[in-house]
C-alpha cells in the first residue's frame, strides 16, 4: 500500500477505499509533520463570563456616558490609529504584536451556548457535542502527532471551565489536564504532581509498598494482562510525581523580577507558567480567567481587574517575543461574548453590563499572524457588526491554519460519521471566511 504521507486525499478517494482505510490514513497523515505550520503552540486566555468589548479593545468614547461610563478616555497605542481602553496602558505599548477583531459575532447571549459556539465554531443543538479548539489542536499536534513530553500536551490553568465537556466526542484522551492549585502561592501545588507535606522519600516508600500489595496485577501474567494500560499509566504518573517533568511548574526557578513583571496574582503567574509550558513544547494552554461576568458594579470591577489583565497579558507578549517564542506561539484572548453596550445604571445593577453576543472583540497575536491590525468594526455604539462579520469558526480556522491543521481533515467520530475540522457549507457552522487580513 503506497501512501505518501502528508498528501491531501480527496473525499472521493476516501469513499472508494472505505472508512477504515481512510481513518488509518488520516492517523498516519497526522503523524507526519504538519505542512505549512507557522505556529506550534497556543496560549488561550479565556475571559470567563464575557469581558466588555467597550471597556477593553473596542472603546466608544463618542457614544456618551450611557455607553462608556467613566472609561471615556481611550489611549493611543504604539500603532497609529488604534486606540484601546485607558486601563490597558502596557498592552497599548504592545499593539504592534496583536490583531484586534472587533466584529466577532454569533448572536447568543447565554453562557453555555455562547462558550460552546466560540470554542467549537459550531452552533449548539446538533446531535453531538463537538470538541473545543484545545482538544482539536491536541488531536492534531499532541501525542498522535509525535508529541513526546510527559507533561500533558493540553493544560488548563487552573480550573476546567465546566461549561461543556471540552473534549466532546473525542473523549477523555483529549481532555485538558487541569492543574488546580494557585501559581501565585509560594508553592504551586499542581494537582496530582506536587503533594503538600509528602517528601520524595515517602513517595518512594509508598510506591514500593503499592508494588508489593498489588497482588492481582502481579498474579495476572505480564503480556496477557488486561492491566497493561493500568501499569503504563502508573509509570507515567510516577514520572510526573518523582521525575524532572514537574519542575516546569516550579516558579521559584524564575528570577524574582520576572515574577514581579507578570504581576503577583493568579492571572499574572498563570501567564508565566504558560510561557514556561510552551517553552517546553506543550501544545495548548488555556488560562481560565474568571470574574468577567460583571452584571453589577461593572466599573468597580474593571478598575480592579483590568490592570491585572494589562500587566499579565502585556508581559506575556513581551517575554514570548524576547525569547523568540512569539513566532511559534499563538496567544488568543477573548470570552464567550461581549457585554451590553448600554450601561444598566438602575438598581440592582448599579452600573452593570449584561450579556452581548451580537458583536464583541477578540485579540490574537503571534504564531505568524500579523499584528498592529484591526479586523472588522462594530457600529458607533458597539451594538451590532458594522463591517466584516467574523464568526467563531473563522477565527478557529485561522488559528488551525497557522498550526498546519487541514480544515478538511476528518475528526475521529465515535460512530464513524464523516465530520471535518471546519466544514464548508454547514449551517451549524456559520462562516464568513479565513481572516486573510492577518495571515
Amino acid at each position: 500500500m503506497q501512501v505518501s504521507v502528508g498528501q491531501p486525499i480527496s473525499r472521493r478517494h476516501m469513499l472508494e477505499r472505505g472508512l477504515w482505510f481512510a481513518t488509518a490514513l488520516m492517523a498516519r497523515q497526522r503523524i507526519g509533520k504538519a505542512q505549512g505550520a507557522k505556529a506550534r503552540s497556543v496560549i488561550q486566555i479565556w475571559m470567563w463570563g464575557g469581558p466588555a468589548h467597550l471597556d477593553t479593545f473596542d472603546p466608544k468614547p463618542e457614544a456618551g456616558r450611557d455607553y462608556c461610563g467613566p472609561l471615556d478616555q481611550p489611549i493611543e497605542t504604539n500603532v497609529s490609529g488604534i486606540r484601546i481602553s485607558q486601563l490597558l496602558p502596557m498592552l497599548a505599548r504592545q499593539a504592534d504584536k496583536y490583531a484586534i477583531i472587533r466584529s466577532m459575532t454569533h448572536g447568543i447571549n447565554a453562557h453555555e451556548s455562547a462558550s460552546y459556539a466560540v470554542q467549537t465554531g459550531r452552533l449548539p443543538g446538533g446531535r453531538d457535542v463537538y470538541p473545543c479548539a484545545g482538544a482539536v489542536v491536541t488531536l492534531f499536534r499532541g501525542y498522535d502527532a509525535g508529541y513526546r513530553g510527559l507533561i500533558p500536551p493540553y493544560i488548563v490553568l487552573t480550573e476546567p471551565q465546566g461549561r461543556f465537556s471540552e473534549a466532546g466526542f473525542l473523549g477523555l484522551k483529549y481532555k485538558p489536564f487541569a492543574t488546580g492549585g494557585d501559581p501565585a502561592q509560594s508553592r504551586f501545588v499542581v494537582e496530582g504532581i506536587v503533594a503538600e507535606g509528602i517528601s520524595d522519600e515517602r513517595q518512594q516508600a509508598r510506591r514500593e509498598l503499592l508494588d508489593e500489595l498489588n497482588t492481582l496485577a502481579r498474579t495476572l501474567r505480564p503480556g496477557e494482562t488486561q492491566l497493561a494500560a493500568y501499569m503504563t499509566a502508573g509509570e507515567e504518573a510516577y514520572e510526573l510525581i518523582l521525575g524532572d517533568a514537574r519542575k516546569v511548574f516550579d516558579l521559584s526557578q524564575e528570577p524574582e523580577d520576572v515574577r514581579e513583571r507578570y504581576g503577583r496574582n493568579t492571572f499574572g503567574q498563570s501567564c508565566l507558567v504558560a510561557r514556561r509550558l510552551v517553552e517546553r513544547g506543550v501544545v495548548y494552554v488555556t488560562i481560565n480567567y474568571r470574574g468577567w461576568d460583571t452584571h453589577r458594579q461593572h466599573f468597580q470591577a474593571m478598575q480592579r481587574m483590568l490592570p491585572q489583565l494589562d500587566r499579565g497579558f502585556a508581559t506575556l507578549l513581551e517575554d514570548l517575543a524576547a525569547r523568540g517564542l512569539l513566532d511559534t506561539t499563538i496567544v488568543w484572548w477573548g470570552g464567550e461574548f461581549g457585554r451590553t453596550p448600554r450601561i444598566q445604571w438602575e438598581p440592582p445593577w448599579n452600573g452593570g453590563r449584561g450579556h452581548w453576543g451580537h458583536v464583541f472583540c477578540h485579540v490574537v497575536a503571534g504564531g505568524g499572524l500579523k499584528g498592529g491590525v484591526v479586523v472588522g468594526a462594530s457600529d458607533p455604539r458597539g451594538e451590532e457588526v458594522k463591517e466584516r462579520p467574523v464568526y467563531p469558526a473563522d477565527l478557529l480556522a485561522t488559528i488551525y491554519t497557522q498550526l498546519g491543521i487541514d480544515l478538511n481533515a476528518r475528526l475521529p467520530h465515535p460512530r464513524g460519521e464523516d465530520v471535518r475540522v471546519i466544514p464548508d457549507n454547514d449551517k451549524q457552522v456559520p462562516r464568513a471566511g479565513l481572516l486573510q487580513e492577518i495571515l
Partner: protein
Amino acid sequence: MTSGTAADDPVRTIFELPHEPEPLSTLDEILFAHWKRLNIAPAYLCSDAVFLRRAYVDLTGTLPEPDQVRNFLQDSHPGKRVALIDALLDRDEFASYWGMKWADLLRIKAEFPINLWPQAARVYHDWVVASLRANKPYDQFARELLTASGSNFKNPPANFYRAVQNRQPETLAKAVALTFMGVRVEHWPRERLQGMAAFFSRVSYKTTREWKEEIVYDDPHKPGAPQEGVLPDGTRVRFTSDRDPRLVFADWLIQPRNPWFARNIANRIWAWLMGRGIVHEPDDIREDNPPLNEGLLSLLERELIQGGWNLKRLYRLVATSATYQLSPIPRAPQPEALDAFAAYRLRRLEAEVLADAICQITGTTEQYVSPIPEPFTLTPPTMRSIALFDGSITSAFLELFGRPPRDTGYESERNNQISAAQRLYLLNSSHIQRKLQSSPRLRALVPHCRSPEQVATQLYPLILSRFPHRQEMEAIARHARRVPNLRELVIDVAWALINTAEFLYRH
C-alpha cells in the same frame, strides 16, 4: 499458552478455587459447548471473596461492609452465593445503581445540550428508580415511556420526548431505536428511518403559566405531519386522529415476537454484568454484526419473555450461572477467551462507583454542585454519587473518571479507560490525600491496630473485601519500619490499597 493452576501458586487462592468449573444451567451448557468447540479452557471458579465483591459491585455499585465480608466468608452454607444474589437484588442500591445506568441511556440532564430543567430531571430520574425498585415489567416500563403525554413536572415519563438535542421526528425515532431496539439508524436506509419517524411526527410541546413547565401531547392536526408510517419491519400503518401513533408503535414494539425489543434488553443486561455484549457493542444490533452465540442470546430472550418481562429474574439468571462465577485469571489466550466469556472481564469501576467506594471506606462524603442555572443545585452530603439525578451535576473527579455527559444515550459515552491523569489523581491528589488524612473511619480503626498485622486485618476487609494473605502482611510489616507510627501506617496502607488494580477494577 495456559497459566499455572491455583494449586501451584498459593497467592492465586485469593482469587480462585482450584477446581474446574461445571455447568450449572442451560446458559452454562451453551457456553461450555461453545468453549469446547473453540478449544478454550474456561477459567477456574472465583473465590468466595472475589464473588462477594463482584456481586456487590456489579448488582448494587456498592462495596460490602467488613462485617458482611466476614459473615459471608465464614458462612459454610453451600447455597450462599445464590442467597447473596437474591438479597442484593432486593437492596435499594440495586435501584439506585441501575437508575444511574438508565439515566445515562435516557440522557437525564437538566442543562445543555439536553435542557430538561432541574425539576424535570429530578422527577424523571426518581420515576426511573421507582420503576426499577418495584421491578416494573419491562414491557410496561418501555410502553409508559413511549406513550407518555402531559407535564414534564407531573408526569415524569413525558420527559422521554424532551430528552433529545432537537425535537425533530427523526431525532425522536433515532432515540427510540437506540434505546429500545439497540439499533443505530445510521445503518438504515433513509426511507426506513422516515417511515418510523412518522410515528413521532405528531408529538407536540407547549408551555404553561408555570415557569419551565412543558406539556408533551399528541396533536392529530399538526401541520405537515404524515398520514401514515412504516414500522421498522416494513408494515405500513395508516394513522387516525383518534389514536396516537405512538401507541401503535409501542404496541408493535413490545410484542414478544418483535425481533428487537427483547433482544436489545437481554443483550444489554448480559453486557452490563459481563462487560461485553453477546452482540458487541450492545447498542449496535444489526444483521452484519452477529451475536457471539445465537443460542445464548435466544435463551436469554426466551427466559425474559416467559418470565413476564421480569428484569430481576434475568439478572439472577446471569449472576447465578457458573459462567458469571469464573475467576478473572484466564486459562486460554486473550482476547479470544475474554471475548467468549471464558474468564471474568476486568473493568475499571465507573466514576460514580469509585467515588462512592472511596467515600465509604474513608467515611467521608462528597457534595456536588450544578454550576447552572442559578440558584445552584447543591446535593445533600449524604447523597451517593450513583444516585445523582442530573447529568449536569458533576465534579472534576467524575469528569476525570469518564462519567458520561448524557448527551447522546450511546453506551460508549461512558469511558472506563484508565489514564495517567486518573492514576495521578488517585496516587497524589490533594483531594484523595485529604480524604485519607481526615478520614473518621480510618482514625477510628487506629486504636484497634496495635501491630502491622492488625493494620492488615482491619484494612483488607474494609478496602478489598477479603482477608490479607501472609505475603501481604509481611510487606506491610516491612513498610512499618519506614513510617513514624501506626497511624501513618494505616494511612499508607489504605492509600496503597485504593491504588491497587484489585480495588480499581471489578474483578
